[in-house]
């Protein structure tokens, strides 16, 4: 049985990266499978297609709708969305697209948003708020 070897090179966690790679292959051709390429991007970067990640965060209640289209910039709004996502889902709160975060983003999930402001009560969107304990 092979165990991942610890490494200190650039703080790179091989075990997590292996998990991401393994899941990425399962998630090929799934709606969010392409998000693997966003792993380890940082605030300030520009990456084609990251607007799709913003759409994801918007869909699940982490980003407000943009005035136009989402840009491909890793901006403060995206960082804030990542902070909230990590906090909500029990991940280490880094505000970065670390491999654990990207891995969970790609995973299948319930269609209900996590802030429940889009909880579908009728066929029209209804704004709700949650009480968290």
């Amino acid at each position, binding site marked *: 049985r092979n165990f991942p070897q610890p490494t200190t090179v650039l703080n790179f966690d091989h075990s997590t990266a292996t998990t991401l790679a393994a*899941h990425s292959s*399962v*998630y090929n*051709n*799934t*709606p*969010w*499978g392409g998000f693997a390429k966003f792993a380890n991007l940082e605030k300030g970067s520009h990456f084609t297609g990251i607007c799709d990640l913003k759409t994801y965060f918007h869909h699940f209640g982490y980003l407000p709708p943009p005035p136009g289209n989402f840009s491909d910039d890793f901006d403060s709004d995206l960082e804030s969305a990542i902070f909230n996502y990590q*906090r*909500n*889902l*029990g991940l280490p709160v880094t505000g970065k697209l670390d491999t654990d975060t990207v891995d*969970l983003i790609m*995973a*299948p*999930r*319930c*269609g*209900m948003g*996590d802030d*429940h402001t889009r*909880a*579908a*009560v*009728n*066929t*029209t*969107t209804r704004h*709700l*708020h*949650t*009480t*968290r*304990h």
Partner: protein
Amino acid sequence: YSFFNGQPRWMRSSPMTLTYAFSPDGMIDYLPQEEIRAVFSRAFGRWSEVIPVNFTEVEDYRTAEIHIGFHNGDHGDGEPFDGVLGVLAHAFSPENGRLHLDAAETWAVDFQTEGSRVAVDLESVATHEIGHVLGLAHSSVSDAIMYPSLRPRSRRVDLRIDDVEGVQALYGSNPNFNYGSLLESDQETFNG
């Protein structure tokens, strides 16, 4: 645990019985109907064990309070499904009663007979969505039923303390519920 705004819940006289039915036009054909019904019966039963609410399957889809169906893509509720994986299912807060599963998934009741790498455990998702039907929103506790994410070929069907406390805050406790046994099971899982 968390609730929807206003903590909506089913308001019925006690003891409460809610009826559920399967959509005659929204079923999958590669799993035996009896197995699907048995899965949902167990999923409803888990919630019944902890709150004073019973669930009964009825044949008449129109008059049932909870409507269950497998649907593809845009199915008319403003929340279209997206194909394999991605969004698996969604449900509506009380007292709407709609519980929809993405028909494009490879739904499994037994991973030993369903070998697909993208197979999704039907019972896990059913139990989660029933939590929404009852009024629970998502939890940040990763092993709770109400955690929003579920990986393919994984199974999460047992209510955890977080789920129990949340749903009991809405409906009260089933007088026959043994809280100690749940704590014990949580402890066993933790140790195991």
